[in-house]
C-alpha cells in the first residue's frame, strides 16, 4: 500500500507507528512479513508479537503487544556505539546501522531497552550448512558479526511504500505516519485515543505508541 505523507521540504519527517492493542489478535503476520521482506537470520525477529497470559480460568485473557525498534527520538543505542555505525538519519528519525562500520561490540544490543537489536554469529540458514536459494539472496542484506535491527523498511519508505509489517497486518492494528504532521492519521489517533509509549520512563522518547 502506498504511503500517504504530506511532504513539506522545510521540516523533517518524524516517523511514528501506532499499535492498536484492541485490534491486534496476535497472529504474528507482521513477524512473518518482516522475515520475508528482510531475510533475517534464523531465530532473529526484528518485529515480533509478545504475549502474556493474565488471570486464571474462567477469567483468563491474553494480552498481545507487537514489539519492534521504537526509532526513538533520543535513542540510547546511538551514543554508546564506538564507531558511529549506529546513527539516526538527518532528515528523519530512523535509527539505522551501517554494517560496514560495525565492529560487533554488542554495546547497542545491551543498551536498547526494547531488545530490538541483534548480532548473528554466523550466516547459516534454517536448514544447516546448505542455504536455500531464498536465503542466498536475502542473507546478502546483512553481515554476520555486526548489529542489525528493524529499519522500518527504509527501502520501502523511501520508495513511498509502507513497511511490510504494516502493509500485511490483517486487522489494521498498525498505522505508520508523520508525527510532525498534525493532520496525519497517526497524529489524530494518538490525540484521540488513550495511549502509552513503552518504557517511556527511560527517557528515550520512543516513537511507537500503543493505543489502548
Amino acid at each position, binding site marked *: 500500500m502506498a504511503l500517504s505523507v504530506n511532504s513539506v521540504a522545510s521540516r523533517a519527517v518524524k516517523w511514528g507507528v501506532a499499535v492498536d492493542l484492541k485490534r491486534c489478535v496476535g497472529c504474528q503476520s507482521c513477524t512473518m512479513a518482516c522475515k520475508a521482506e528482510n531475510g533475517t537470520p534464523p531465530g532473529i525477529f526484528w518485529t515480533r508479537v509478545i504475549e502474556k497470559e493474565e488471570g486464571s480460568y474462567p*477469567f483468563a485473557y491474553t494480552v498481545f503487544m507487537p514489539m519492534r525498534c521504537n526509532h526513538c527520538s533520543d535513542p540510547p543505542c546511538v551514543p*554508546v556505539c*564506538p*564507531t558511529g*555505525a549506529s546513527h539516526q538519519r538527518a532528515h528523519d528519525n530512523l535509527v539505522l546501522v551501517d554494517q560496514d562500520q560495525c565492529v560487533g*561490540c554488542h554495546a547497542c544490543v545491551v543498551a536498547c531497552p526494547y531488545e530490538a537489536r541483534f*548480532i548473528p554469529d554466523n550466516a547459516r540458514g534454517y536448514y544447516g550448512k546448505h542455504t536455500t536459494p531464498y536465503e542466498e539472496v536475502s542473507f546478502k542484506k546483512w*553481515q554476520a558479526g555486526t548489529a542489525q535491527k528493524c529499519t522500518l523498511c527504509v527501502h520501502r519508505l523511501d520508495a513511498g511504500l509502507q513497511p511490510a509489517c504494516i502493509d500485511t497486518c490483517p486487522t489494521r492494528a498498525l498505522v505508520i505516519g508523520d508525527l510532525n504532521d498534525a493532520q496525519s492519521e497517526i497524529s489524530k489517533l494518538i490525540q484521540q485515543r488513550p*495511549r*502509552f509509549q513503552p518504557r517511556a520512563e527511560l527517557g528515550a522518547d520512543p516513537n511507537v505508541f500503543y493505543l489502548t
Partner: protein
Amino acid sequence: MVQGFNAELKCQQEWGWLLSVWLFLSGTGCGLFVLFKILDLPIFFALLALGSIVLGGAVLLLELGSPLRAWRGASRIRTSWLSRGVVFVCFFILTGFLSIAPAWVPGLPWDSASLTGGALGWIAALCALMIVLYPGFFLAQNRSIPFWNTAWLPVVLIGYAATGASAMILLGSAFLGDGLRPFDSLAAVLLVVNAILVCVYLLAMHRAGGPAKESVRLLNAPPLSWTFRLGVILVGMLLPLLLVLWVPSAGVLAGGCMLAGSLLFRYCVLKVGVYVPPALVQAGMDFSRLNRTGTDLEREYAGMAAHHAGGRG
C-alpha cells in the same frame, strides 16, 4: 540467539566470560600500575600490569563480532565510553612501556628518574585509572538495566581493581622475596573495604526493587548461586581475609583466591543484568469486562440465553 516471545524479566545474553576476563585483566592490571606508581614498587609489577592489559585486549578482540575492524572503535570519543576506553588503553600501553623502557633500553633520552620519565609514568597511571573507571561508567549508562544503572557500580569496580592489584602484589612477593610483606595488611584493608562496598551495592539494588531486586535474587538462585556464594564471597573474600590475617605464609594462596573472586564477581554482575520488562498492562486499559465475577457471568449468560430463547419464540 533466539528472541523470546513472552513478556518476563529477562537478563542480557550478550556478555559473559570474555568480557568478564577483559574487565578482570584490565581492572587488575591497571590497578596494579597505579599502585606501582604510588607505592614505588619494583618494575616487575609495571611489566605485569602492562602484560595483563595486552592479554586482556587480545581477549576483548575475541568478544567482537568483527575484530578486524577494531581500529574503528576509537572514532566516537565524544559520546561513547567504549571509544574513550580504546583511547585510554592505547595511551596507557604506549606511555607505560615508554616510562619503564630505560630499564632495558640504554641510550634513551630519558630515564625513570628524569622529569620526562616521571611524567610518562604518571600519564600512564592516569590512563590506568581511567581504564579502571570507564567500564563502570559504560555499564552505568545503560538505563534499561537498573542493576548497572547506578553510581555504585564504578565505585565497586574501583574496589575490585584495588583488591586485585593487592592480590597481584601478594603473588609477586612470592617471586621477589619477603621485601613486600608489609603489603599483607594493605590486602586485608582492601578486602574489608571491598566487602563493605559490595554489601552496600547489593543492598541498594535490593531496596531499589523491580529488575534491580530481581538481579540480586538471581545472584542467590541457581545457576549462579554457587558461583556467587562460594566463588565470590567465600573464596574471593572470606578465605583470603582469614589467610592474610592469620596465615602469613599463605600469601600466594590468598592472592590466587582474591583474583578468582575478582573474576567471578565481574562475571556474576554481567550475567544478572535484568532488563526493565515491557509493561503490557498499562493504566487506562479497560479490562473490566475480563474481570467479571462468576456471578456476573452467570447473570450475563442467563440474560443472553433468555434473549435468544425470546428471539426464537
